[in-house]
């Protein structure tokens, strides 16, 4: 199996090249730009036979993909932060139209003030949109999840779009070794297997006005598909695991969790620092562990609660700045704990907001504060 030194952004582009989408449409925004530049290079070199619609805004990028997917094209776009927010109306439209669009999201803070560094606020706006959401913590995961995204979205039991997210700069622009999967296209469903809604041979309308009773039926079908997505993800990840040796099927991975009394729950590249903190704390005799969540929507409530059963404390650390409320990740973790009557205390920490650096030392300090029980949720701003 070939390994290349790739940034997270290039890893996405390499995976997209395996998928061979028919139509790509994107608008540049830091720090997504190198994804679409690499895709443009692939197209120019004849290695990717896609039409690239170089739109005049992100709203148009998603609209172009909705148009393309509605007649059966495989598609891809990538964006970040304000680009996602500008696109937001039609992001929801894509899910409601049940189109298997795949999007890369380089997570970046939202202004004002302008901030190009990693923050998950943009990611969390997708929570309720109907999109399947995967969070990659390194370049390898960006590559693998982008392939999984097509396997998930184009499955007829799902037929919902999927976004793969990764941190600005820590992942998007950092070179890491990435194992490419030989014959990766064989993992994906054959193109044309997903039947498009629109063709003049069988005229139909997509997106009519619907009265409440009809709207409800359509939304309910989406909800059921989102639940199916849990199973489909598991099967797809197992299939990818067979050829790659990397198994994502649980939706998360646990590091030293088994006998831990306190588990950190995180998404994204911050996991690396948390692992460092865990190892140091373990050497000091603290039984702590770290859980890295990959699958955010549909949220794996059952299996997460199972993994956290018997723990005394769960410390959620997220790069989010939810105001006047618990962080979205903590809210979901709390729901998991509640659903399965897991009695662990929950601590919700926002760290790394606006791209602020989070080190293992910071995580150790958070642990000490969490131990003291100094508030159910707080932000880590000082060192």
């Amino acid at each position: 199996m070939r390994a290349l030194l790739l940034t997270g952004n290039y890893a996405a582009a390499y995976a997209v090249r395996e998928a061979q989408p028919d139509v790509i449409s994107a608008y540049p925004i830091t720090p997504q730009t190198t994804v679409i530049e690499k895709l443009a290079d692939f197209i120019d070199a004849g290695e990717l036979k896609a039409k690239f619609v170089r739109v005049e805004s992100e709203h148009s990028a998603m609209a172009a993909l909705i148009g393309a997917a509605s007649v059966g094209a495989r598609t891809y776009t990538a964006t970040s932060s304000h680009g996602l927010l500008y696109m937001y109306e039609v992001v929801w439209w894509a899910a409601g139209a049940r189109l298997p669009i795949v999007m890369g999201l380089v997570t970046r803070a939202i202004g004002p003030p302008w901030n190009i560094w990693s923050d998950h606020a943009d990611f969390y706006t997708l929570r309720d949109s109907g999109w399947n959401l995967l969070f990659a913590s390194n370049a390898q995961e960006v590559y693998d999840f982008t392939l999984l995204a097509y396997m998930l979205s184009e499955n007829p039991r799902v037929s919902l779009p999927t976004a793969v997210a990764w941190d600005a700069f820590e992942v998007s622009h950092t070179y890491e070794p990435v194992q490419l999967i030989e014959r990766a296209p064989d993992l994906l469903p054959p193109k044309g297997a997903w039947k498009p809604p629109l063709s003049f041979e069988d005229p139909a309308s997509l997106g009519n006005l619907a009265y409440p009773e009809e709207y409800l039926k359509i939304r309910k079908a989406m909800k059921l598909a989102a639940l199916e997505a849990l199973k489909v993800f598991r099967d797809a990840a197992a299939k990818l695991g067979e050829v790659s040796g990397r198994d994502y099927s649980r939706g998360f991975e646990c590091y030293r969790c088994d006998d831990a009394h306190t588990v950190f729950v995180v998404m994204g590249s911050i996991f690396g620092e948390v692992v460092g903190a865990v190892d140091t704390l373990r050497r000091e005799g603290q039984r702590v562990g770290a859980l890295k969540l990959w699958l955010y929507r549909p949220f794996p409530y059952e299996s997460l609660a199972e993994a956290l059963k018997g723990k005394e404390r769960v410390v959620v650390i997220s790069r989010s700045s939810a105001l006047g409320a618990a962080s979205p990740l903590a809210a979901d973790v709390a729901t998991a704990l509640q659903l399965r009557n897991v009695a662990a205390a929950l601590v919700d920490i926002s760290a790394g907001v606006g791209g602020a650096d989070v080190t293992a030392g910071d995580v150790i300090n958070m642990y000490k504060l969490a131990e003291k029980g100094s508030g159910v949720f707080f932000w880590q701003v000082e060192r």
Partner: protein
Amino acid sequence: MAHRAFPREEYLERGHAACPGCGAMLLLRHVLKALGPNTYLVIPASCTSVIAGPHPKSAFRVPVLHIAFAASAAAASGVVEALARLERPGNVVVWAGDGGTVDIGLQALSGAAERGHNFIYICYDNEAYMNTGIQKSGSTPYGAWTTTTPSGNPGFKKDLPGIMISHRVPYVATLSPAYPSDIAYKVKKAASISGGLKYLHALAPCPPGWRYEPRLTVEIAKLAVLTGMWVLYEVEKGVFRLTGPSAGLLDKSKRRPVAEYLRLQGRFSHLSQEEVEKLQREVDEKWDRIAELLEEGKR
């Protein structure tokens, strides 16, 4: 024998939800006759979104992609590129109102025109946001009553065909529902041009919005042209040509006074004599410029 001169096949189902006398549906009926069944319609939020009827029924016998308000030209760009990549045939046609074209949809339209996608964009212009209850749009003419300009619109009507001409698209033309042969000719010509965006701008008289009895739709659409207020023309590869009755109206004495058009519509009923004369002068000046343009073209 008008019914023998046009295709018989109807692509609008009877019992669609348009208002009685809807100028837009009269236009669309003829547009679809000219295009035939191998047509994908892309329809942004507009009257037609509702006229299409509630899910799970559709009043259109062609595939339709309903799309968000600002996005029709972008969605159509994606449809046409996908069909090209997948090597599947079909006309791709945006059917958008004036609001979704000159205001909220302008960015996407400009981008699509610049990129030169191979589709037809038709703006049916009822000169206000009619679907939401007759509010002023960038296409509302000077002086018109709307619910947000109750004393008359202080603004001027954006010249979208002019804007599209400066994008150097291969074909720009105007339509009126009073002249179905002209519609058929222009729609067919647009469909025959492969490559680049073809832009058609159609006047769509609206009984509730313009405040007139529904039976007058065709007469008003005729007077718009015969007074010179609405010019029927086409611009093919930059060459301007008057069509239909407009071709005979360079001579001012052949043009009916604009008052004949204005007085049929309640939305202009508050105009003073001075304002009507001002509008008459503006129409005359517009025709002077058209005459100059044609002269320049000859040299």
